[in-house]
């Protein structure tokens, strides 16, 4: 066991050297780090608990998603039945309802039933791997068609919506200009947003929590507000409440259900000021299709009122003084510069396909984070120095070997974490301390065994050899059990526990390597060189 062929010695040396080299960037101050060549710019990330910042866990409102999905399908059905070759191509339908999670309608002319089914078939799509479609089309009572989303269709809709939502949130957070935000999907219906160094989590939540579904709808001029409040809303209209603090006294407007134009036809949105009142507003520009629709609708409805609706709340309901032809408009409401800016960003990045809610928030201020890392580092240094001194006092030369290996171990852990871009959290620091403990334990086991074998009267060479081989079994078993614990922490844990598990796992691997192999190399070289007859251990 004490024979080290040249290639092994070289291999071990290379690994240790790489470990030291790759750990260096993590210790450099920001400025020097940035002057490094690109390939060397790998360092350990600090978790939000250390660096300060916000962690948000957003969860999709699946009930809301299903509602939107149904509403969209309703539109698709109407369009499909209208046909694309003029009125003679239409299939007359009636009693279209959208309730209880399904769409149901009547085909007036029984002879057209098959044609209707045919058209529906072309608008539904395959979903999943089993060849299932996303909607089931059933005929009930020979004239009624019922559309229900299949489970594969639902799953697919959720997955698509979450992907889109992730991209949109990404765009919004990046518009804030913060450094290196992390936005990842977690599980089926969640998104994690982590923004290091963020000072104001409320603004972040405001920004990404907004669905930003913008709609322009006509105010129903025929509706009597009092009648509407009593529940008698004209067909095709509905009550829409004002956003908080808006409406100058009125709490709601009665609006036509039909959406004239919606946010997805926006080309751009910017915060600006209203030239007359000097109030902050959001200026928007429509794309070409949107512009022409907007021009047509406003031309037809001069002197009538229309409403700008954001996420189901009326922002304002001005009257149309003249046709708006240029394709640009202003959204007014009682904005501050900041809230107008945040709305502009949300509109620019598009509407979230599904409502997202903050279900978990963890924010740490940068000062507290800096304090934590300073105290963690001091504790790490004091602890390490104490353990190093103690090892030398107890094991002499072999203690020094163990200590050198321990320092290499620290370098290797940092190097590997940097290479994988792993994140160091506060519990991670504790994991670090624990790893050092485990590395020391391995050397204690070995050295105690060497003592024992010497006591039994073995020669130095043989005692060292037996020390390593006999102790290895227990070291191996002990570390495997720790890997099992770490793996379970990683799978089931979340946030801080995961960070801890990562450090622990890396640490277990490197500590076995340094504590067993590296110290053995040192011991072997010394034994071969000096051939001692007695050993002080």
């Amino acid at each position, binding site marked *: 066991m004490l024979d080290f062929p040249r290639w092994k010695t070289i*291999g071990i040396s290379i690994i240790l050297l790489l470990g030291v080299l790759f750990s260096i960037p993590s210790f450099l101050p920001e400025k020097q780090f940035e002057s490094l060549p690109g390939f060397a710019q790998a360092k350990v990330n600090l978790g939000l*608990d250390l660096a300060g910042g916000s962690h948000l*866990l957003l969860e999709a409102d699946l009930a809301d998603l299903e509602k939107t999905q149904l509403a969209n399908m309703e539109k698709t059905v109407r369009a499909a039945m209208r046909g694309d070759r003029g009125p003679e191509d239409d299939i007359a339908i009636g009693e279209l309802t959208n309730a209880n999670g399904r769409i149901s309608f009547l085909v007036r002319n029984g002879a057209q039933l098959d044609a209707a089914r045919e058209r529906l078939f072309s608008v539904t799509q395959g979903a999943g791997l089993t060849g299932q479609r996303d909607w089931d089309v059933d005929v009930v009572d020979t004239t009624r068609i019922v559309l229900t989303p299949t489970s594969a269709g639902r799953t697919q809709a959720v997955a698509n919506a979450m992907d889109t939502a992730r991209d949109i949130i990404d765009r919004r957070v990046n518009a804030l200009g913060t450094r290196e935000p992390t936005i990842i999907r977690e599980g089926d219906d969640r998104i994690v947003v982590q923004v290091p160094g963020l000072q104001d989590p409320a603004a972040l939540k405001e920004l990404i*929590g907004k669905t930003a579904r913008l709609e322009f709808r006509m105010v129903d001029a025929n509706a009597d507000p009092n009648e509407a409040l009593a529940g008698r809303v004209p067909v095709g209209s509905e009550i829409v409440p004002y956003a908080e603090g808006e409406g100058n006294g009125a709490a709601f407007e009665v609006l036509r259900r039909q959406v004239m134009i919606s946010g997805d036809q926006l080309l751009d949105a910017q915060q600006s000021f209203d030239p007359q009142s000097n109030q902050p507003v959001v200026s928007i520009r429509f794309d070409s299709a949107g512009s022409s629709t907007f021009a047509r609708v406003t031309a037809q409805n001069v002197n009538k009122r229309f409403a700008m609706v954001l996420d189901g709340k009326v922002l304002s309901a001005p009257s149309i003084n003249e046709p708006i032809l240029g394709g640009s408009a202003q959204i007014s409401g009682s904005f501050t510069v900041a809230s107008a800016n945040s709305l502009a960003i949300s509109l620019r990045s598009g509407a979230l396909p599904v409502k997202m*809610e*903050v*279900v*978990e*928030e*963890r924010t740490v201020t940068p*000062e*507290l984070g800096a304090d934590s890392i300073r*105290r*963690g580092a*001091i*504790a790490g240094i*004091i*602890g*390490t120095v*104490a*353990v190093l001194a103690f090892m030398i*006092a*107890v094991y002499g030369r072999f203690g020094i070997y163990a200590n050198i290996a321990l320092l290499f171990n620290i370098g290797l852990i940092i190097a590997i974490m940097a290479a994988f871009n792993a994140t160091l959290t*506060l*519990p991670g620091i*504790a*994991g670090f*301390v*624990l790893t050092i*403990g485990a590395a*020391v*334990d391995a050397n*204690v*086991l070995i050295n*105690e065994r060497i*003592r024992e074998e010497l*006591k039994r009267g073995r020669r130095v060479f043989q005692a060292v050899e037996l020390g390593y081989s*006999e102790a*290895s*079994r*227990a070291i*191996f*078993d*002990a570390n*495997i*059990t*720790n890997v*099992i*614990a*770490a793996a379970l*922490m990683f*799978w*089931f*844990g979340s*946030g*801080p*526990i995961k960070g*801890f598990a990562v450090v622990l796992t890396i640490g277990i691997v490197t500590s076995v390597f340094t504590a*067993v192999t590296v110290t053995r190399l040192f011991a072997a070289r010394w034994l071969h060189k000096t051939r001692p007859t007695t050993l*002080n251990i």
Partner: protein
Amino acid sequence: MRLLKLVPEDTNIQFLRWRHVAMAISILMIIASIALVATRGLNLGVDFVGGQSVRVEFTGQMPKIDEIREKVGAIGLGEATIQQFGSDQAVSIRTALPEGDKTAADRAGQQLVAGIQKAFPTAKTGSVETVSGKVSGELLRTGALSLLLAMVAISIYIWIRFEWQFGVGALFGLFHDVALTFGFFALTQMQFDLNIVAALLTIIGYSLNDTIVVFDRIRENLKKYRKMEIIPLLDLSINETLARTVMTSFTMLIALAVLLWVGPDVIFGFTAAMLLGIVIGTYSSIYMSAPILVWLKVGPDSFIPRTTAATEGAERVTRDDDGAVV
């Protein structure tokens, strides 16, 4: 140079002589811990019960806890749990989340921070945590599940590498350590959060280290001294590994004590749990896991029926892995 020896050479302490007493004490402690958890309960953090927790640091004179409670109560978020946190200038304020929709919870969080700022202009909010009831329920479930699975998986591993009696012994020791740590948290009412679950899993891993070192020596001695009675053999094995046990526990205690003393407040509970875990983990591998082997009638024959093939196989595995490390 004369080297330091923590444990004299050739100790011959009859650990097992006290096994009945130790077992009685341990069982009493386990029962007491369970009773404590049942009656006083754990001071679960927002990770597990949901709610919001704000860490507030005061500069200058810190107001009395009662005063803080009164002012926080005035914000109108129900009763707050207020605890000294780490340094004597900081408190953690915990309130429940309002029922109803999630945006209400979100608003309440901002309300709390704003309210504190208004009542105590010199105070700084260092961190804010808000966890909804749904997420906290999940965290509690997955936390408990990972603990349970870790204990079972580790025991199965021991069973495979040793014998079933050793697996049972290890499981019993683990149960002891986990129960006592829970008892400690119920007694001190220190906040029990996600980090503490990580600490518990680490305690399990560490306690196992100890147990495995002792078990490994027992297995070795069972093969070496075929004729020896089991009790003296266990005593011998524990004595032979005693120097290592003391030495390792001591270095771990140094590292953790430093972390407890100068380390960040945020991991105080975590470090305290580990410190305690190391002490009871060391105790349990000597007084819980080993004596069980006597009752389960482990003897030299435990390793015989499968002849030497099994043990040799095991030996070879370690060698291989040893080699693979290089």
